[in-house]
């Protein structure tokens, strides 16, 4: 038994699971998210997704955010899982 860290983009984070923001692949989207208070170290979880690869509904610290599907692919999170 051990704990492993995984790196996944927001669009691939399972609903309800919490990930910690760790990296931005797109600088513009990264800087907007930082401005919104979503900077590396913040926990986020995906609440739901709009149909047809639409936007992702996120929650972090009891606040709600929307981020486009393409945009979500550029934000990477660390998640932990037990082996």
């Amino acid at each position: 038994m051990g704990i492993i860290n995984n790196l996944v983009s927001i669009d691939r984070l399972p609903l309800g699971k919490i990930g910690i923001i760790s990296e931005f692949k797109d600088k513009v989207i990264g800087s907007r998210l930082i401005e919104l208070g979503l900077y590396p170290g913040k926990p986020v979880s995906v609440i739901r997704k709009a149909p047809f690869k639409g936007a992702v509904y996120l929650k972090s610290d009891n606040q709600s955010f929307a981020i486009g599907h393409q945009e979500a692919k550029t934000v990477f999170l660390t998640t932990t899982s037990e082996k």
Partner: protein
Amino acid sequence: MNTDKLQIALLGNPNVGKSSVFNQLTGLRQKVGNFPGVTVDKKIGATTLQKGQNATVIDFPGTYSLYPTSSDEKVVLNTFANPGSKDYPDVIIYIADVTNLERHLLLLTQVQELNIPIVLGLNMSDIAERKGQITDIQKLSKKLNLPVISINGRTGEGIDLLKKAVLEVSKTPLATIDAYSFQKNDSEKHVIQEILNSENIDNPYQASLWAHHVDDLSFLKSDTKENINKIRANHDYNDMRFQIDETLLRYNFISPLVQDIVKENHQLESSSATDKIDKIVTHKFFGPVIFFALLLLVFQSIFSWASAPMDWIDGGIANLGEYFKDILPEGWATDLLLDGVLAGLGGVLVFVPQITILFFLISLMEESGYMSRAVYLFDRLMMKFGMSGRSIISLISGGACAIPAVMATRAISNWKERMITIMVTPLISCSARIPVYAILVAFAVPNETVWGIFSLQGLAFMGLYLLGIVATLLAGIVFKLILKSDAPSFLAMELPSYKVPHWKNVALTVSEKVNTFVTEAGKVIIVISIILWALATYGPGNSIEDAAAKAEMELQDMNLDEVASADYIAAKQLEASYVGILGKAIEPVFRPLGFDWKISIALVTSFAAREVFVGTMATIYSVGSAEDDIAPLRQRLTNAVNPVTGEKEFTTATAYSLMIFYVFAMQCMATLAVVKRETKGWKWPVIQFVYMSALAYFGALIAYNIF
């Protein structure tokens, strides 16, 4: 500092309730201006800080930081990075959401480094209280080295204290604010130092902004830009890296501070009201259903609630005209006043009910927080057509009237998405096209039922609407390919908690929209309607009188009753007027579409508004007195025969050609006037007129040759 004419900037993040505070400060003493060179509105108001001390307040667009991602945010940057700007403030009132302090302090710490005196207003204190959150205001004030006031934008609580604090900070000499200790790397330090030296400015953060945003700063002279670019290149300046580092460093200061001064009394319930509402409202299936139900309501209300007040305005203007006709002396001046100016004014005022209703409903959606959920649901769909999730509101409102729809694009912050929405919205068939479609469909499509239930005419009507929608979306795709964007288009936004709309804000939004339309677009509409009226009323020399005399001669052999005689004379007079001459002159252009000079005349006059087409055709075909009844006109059109060739003047092919023409054509001066107002120039309305006319021309050409 000159405190006689204090200039205050109201600054803060989007959705912080800044406009409520602006309204509290200025009441109705506000107007809308422009920021130089951009299509962003500048709301300016006057406030009284204390007896005898007035100040100007500028409400800046909501901004997250001095690193702009939209044209709205660029305005803020261009003002605050330029101490020479006439909008540069003496004092900043910074509004922050106390329930979300961490994020809201980011921009504050940035402008603070520009050494402008700041008063911090903490809004939403009532919500914080309900949440059981306690903020140590004194400690915050001490740590940030500026006055902090707890306010409530809705009730006006704390506004007096805010004013007092503004007065105080404007009078006390500014203590130098310690810049947050950046561990700037060598490259950045050198770049900043060299800009400070070579450009003769003394604020390091200002120099840093110049280095970072050199291409976005419109006020910099070209040799300054050249110099900065050279310095940047010399030191291998990496702006994205620097931005992220700077922002994270600021959070390193802000986060512990907020944790220290904000105490949560009890744990938040896991599922707040907002979460519960969003579970349904942003649901995969129910979300869109609720959205379209709401839009149906919007659409229906513009259509039905507006029709009664529109009739009153029409009737009122007509009565006013009758009244003045009796008391004013006869003559050209009276004609000009009544048929030109007063009719033009009527043409402006008649749109007010639609604008009022649409913006009442839109600002309810904005204020409550629903609008950002609509963006969440539809951004992906609209993106394919070069537009934003908000554009869908404009497109659907365009089904009632393009004017409020174009005005509603103001909320789209991305310039390119906004322009595309403005350019394509008038292709959606509006209510003014209905009378035109009605007469043409009644003429060309047999009144039959197909497959048992569908009326053929109804299907034709629907076909015209669908054609408009398809054209709108295709035009969106084309503009998406052509237009260059000034800022990347992406979706990453906050979904604010639901709030009960604040009625004062709703009322102010509505009155501001109506006011702007009447005073700004109204001028253009009145001028064009006076020109159209003059063209239809006067002809060269005595041509009008001659035509009337000739018509009366002809009437002697025709044995018509009084009404029919008057209609006949009116038809001949219109033919002899400048509009008649113009119609005949442009006939060769429209001949390939199957339009004769009579239709050409109606095309010219219907530029005032599409429904005028029907009235003009009725006048030309000598059934002007029939007014709203289309049966006599239809009869005339069916029977009309060209006296020279003996062929039918108005064929089914002509009718289809005209239908297609009216689906596409930009036959509405009021919309053009509004587009001019919204884009702040004639360039975009001209492009719009040209492309829509071309589409109409070739569409009609194809239709005429098919049928």
